[in-house]
């Protein structure tokens, strides 16, 4: 159910946003598992453990 990314602003929680910044994850490339595709904390943690696919 992940929505299209609107206007370059990912749908994410406040914690996910901060975590993405600190862990160097590009939040726009993360598929969110939350409601309507919202990127959650866990999604960022998972993404940070995976080798980045450019």
């Amino acid at each position, binding site marked *: 159910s992940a*929505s299209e990314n*609107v206007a370059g602003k990912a*749908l994410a*929680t*406040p914690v996910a946003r901060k975590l993405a910044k600190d862990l160097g994850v590009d939040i726009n490339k993360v598929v969110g598992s*939350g*409601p*309507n*595709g*919202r990127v959650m904390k866990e999604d960022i943690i998972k993404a940070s453990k995976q080798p980045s696919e450019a």
Partner: protein
Amino acid sequence: MKKYDIVVLGGGPGGYIAAIKSSQLGKKVAVVEKDKLGGICLNWGCIPTKTLLSYAKHFQDILRSEDFGIGGIDKSKVYVDIEKMMLKKDETVNKLVSGIHMLFKKNGVDLYNGFGKVIDDHNLDVNGENLSFDNLIIATGSKAYIPNIKGLKESFESGKAINNTGILGLKDKLDTVIVLGNNTYAVEYATFYNAIGTDVTMIFEDKNILPDYDSELSQTLERQLKKSGIKLVNSSDITEVRDDKILVSQKGKEKEFTADKYVVFYGIRPNLSGIENLKLIKDENGFIQTDERLRTNIKNIYAIGDVNGKMPLAHVASFEGVVASENISGIDSKIDYLKIPKVVYSFPEISSVGLTEEEAKLKNINYSIGKFPLSANSMAILKGETSGFVKILADKDMYGEIIGFHIIGNDASNMISEAASVMNLEGTIYDLARVVHPHPTLTEAIVEASLDAIEKPLNI
């Protein structure tokens, strides 16, 4: 001469919070207040009205105590003792006002009791003493607006017409009142008088009783007020106000109304006395122009609360006080009025944050609507207070972000905070639809309304 980092002119909910926050941020602060700390809100506004409404609600509940299986009350004997209510109300007010005095001591805020006259951009005079300041926060509040209706001024002078201050001085129950105006405080006082058994007629020019609210809520409230016995005379021009009667022209028909007192609420105008020397930019009604950081056109001067006319409410004044203090202290911060809730403490209550449906239409937003009636909510049913609904507007082009939230119903005042939090977190109806709410609570209606916006509610 005393020197301060910040002088705050006015000790209402805007000024007193600005002073405490500034002091917490390490500034040397003084508050100049000519009257009582707490301003209109604590002394003649929010707290008195909500106290009286809370008592009136109890009175109403007592009258239906049989519905709760409670016996032994002779309804014909139960009465409202206005004098006692006012004394109890005073106790509450005094407690809160003395609370602010304590907060000032605790936070090291200097209080000057007297009329503050601003001399120039860096000096103010109070009781003959000069206070110099780096920054000034104007928090002088507002006064009632009295429109140019024939006889209205005279009626105030004779004591026939009254508003919030006059009402609080009354010692007896009124048999009949006419309420002039259509806004929150007109509705709240109409609710109060009606609830304690006074015969109430509301007369106003517009069609809607609450033109600033979503029209569906305004209309629902109108039906409720009528049902509870209030007479509504809308779309009416008031031709003349006399002590013996009010002359009205409604759709070409001339009518007359009479009552013990006229309760008058026509909105507010800024309170500008004391700041005449400042070259501030104001709007056509005199409200001081401010930006989202509460800055005026003068670099070191801020204006918060009713005096800027943005959203004349106590919690707005207080938060503007926080924002102004932060900006003065070098913390960049802003206010977003579209995420601040407002409440009407009528029976049932109304609360709202963000856009009304009419506004969303005007802005051409591609919105979806979710609605759920309290008549299908268990807690509302078991309390026997089922009138009202939750209405949510979501922006379809922005993941379903919630852009408007409107509640009419018992306890709508407390329920709207959840909406405000969700909207500040840029939450969507999809998020809200997945939040498990405790059973049985009124707030379950919020989830159902969200589900309605997406697909289907479960319990209707």
